[in-house]
C-alpha cells in the first residue's frame, strides 16, 4: 500500500501548490508542531508563524507561513494561508520587511498576550531563516 497522500496549499490569490505524492507534512500548529502521515484522523487546526515541511518522493520542501489553517480529511490535506514563501527562493529583503513590521507591532501598547506570543514566534522563526 502506498504511503502517499494529497496536499494542497492555497493562499487568497491562487492555489499555491498541490502535490499528490506526499509522505509526510510537518506543520507549525498552534500548540506545537504536528507531523501528518497518511490515514491521520480528520483534523482541523490553525497555524502559528513557522515552517511547513513537506516530504515527498521528489524530495523535501520547506515554506515559511505567517498564519493559516489546515484541514485533513480522507487523505486530503488543505492548508489555507494568507502569506507563504518558499524557503528555496526566498527574498532576504522581504523577510527583513516582515520582520520589521512585526517588531513595530510588538512595540505597540495595545496588543494582548496571544498576539504578543504570536509575534514573538514570528520573529524567532524569521531570525532563524535570515
Amino acid at each position: 500500500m502506498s504511503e502517499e497522500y494529497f496536499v494542497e496549499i492555497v493562499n487568497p490569490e491562487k492555489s499555491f501548490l498541490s502535490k499528490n505524492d506526499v509522505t509526510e507534512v510537518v506543520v507549525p500548529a498552534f500548540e506545537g508542531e504536528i507531523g501528518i502521515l497518511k490515514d491521520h484522523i480528520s483534523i482541523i487546526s490553525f497555524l502559528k508563524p513557522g515552517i511547513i515541511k513537506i516530504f515527498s518522493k521528489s524530495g523535501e520542501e520547506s515554506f515559511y507561513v505567517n498564519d493559516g489553517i489546515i484541514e485533513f480529511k480522507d487523505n486530503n490535506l488543505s492548508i489555507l494561508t494568507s502569506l507563504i514563501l518558499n524557503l528555496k527562493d526566498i527574498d532576504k529583503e522581504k523577510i527583513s520587511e516582515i520582520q520589521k513590521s512585526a517588531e513595530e507591532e510588538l512595540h505597540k501598547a495595545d496588543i494582548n498576550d496571544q498576539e504578543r506570543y504570536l509575534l514573538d514566534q514570528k520573529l524567532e522563526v524569521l531570525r532563524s531563516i535570515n
Partner: protein
Amino acid sequence: MASLDDLKKRISSVKSTQKITKAMKMVAAAKLRRAQESAEKGRPYSDKMNNIILNLSNGISDIDNAPKLLSGTGEDKVHLCVVMTSDRGLCGGFNTNIIKKAKLYFQKILDEGKTLKIITVGTKGYDQLKRLYGDNIIERISFKESKNVNYFDADKVGKIVIEKFDKKEFDVCAIFYNQFKNVITQIPQEQQIIPLKTSEKEENSSEDNYEFEPEEDEILSNLLPKNISTQIFKAMLENSASEQGSRMSAMDNATRNAGEMVDKLTIEYNRSRQAAITKELIEIISGAESL
C-alpha cells in the same frame, strides 16, 4: 443646416472620441482577462474556508456560547452596509447597479425604523451616496493606489468591520458587490457576512468527526475574522472582474455608436456639399441663360 466647416469639425471630433473609446475597450479587455483569472484562482481559498467553517459550526455543541460573529448579537437594530464600487467611471451601469441594489436595502432598513451605517469602498459609490445618505456614511475607503486587488487591502476592510463589531457598533453586516457572470452580465449581490449565514448546513452534516487543536470555539473565533476578510476579498475580486467586463462592453457600445454617428455625419456632409455645388451650377447656368 450646419455649414460644411462645422460638419467637418464635428466628424473629426467624433472620430477622436471613437479612438479613445476603442483604446479603453482594448485596455479593459486585457485587464479583464487578468481580473477574471485572479477571480478564478481566488475561489478555492474562499470555498475551502467556507467548508471548514461549515464543518466547524456543525461540530459546535453549545450554540449559546458560539462566537458572536457566527451567531450575531441577538439583536437586529443597527445595520452596517459595506458598498463596494469602483474608483473609476466610464464603466456602464456597473456602479449604478450596485447603488440601486444597496438603496433598496437601505430603504427597507430605514422603513423598519432601524439604524443604518454605511462604509463605502471605492470613490464612485461615495459620490453617488453622499447626497442622500451622507449622514449615514461612517467610513470611506478607497484603494486607488493599489494596481491590483490584493488580500491585504481586503484585510484592512475586514479589520475595520471587525473592530466596529467588537465595539458593538452594529448588529448585522452586509456587503454589496457585483458578481461576475460574463462580460455582458454582472449581477449585483447582497451578502450578509455578520452573523454568518450557513445555508447549506443540512446537506453537509455528515458525521465527520474532526480532531480539533485547540478547541473548536477557539479555532472558530480565530477563523471567523479571517473569513470576513476572505469574503470581502472574494467580493473585491468579483467586483474588479465585473468592472472591467462592464467597462469593456460599455466602451464597445460607445465605439459602435461613434461609428454610426460618423457615418451619419459624413452623409450629411456629402449631401450639403453636393447641394452647394448644385446651387452654384444653377446660378452659373441661369446667369448664362439671361445673357
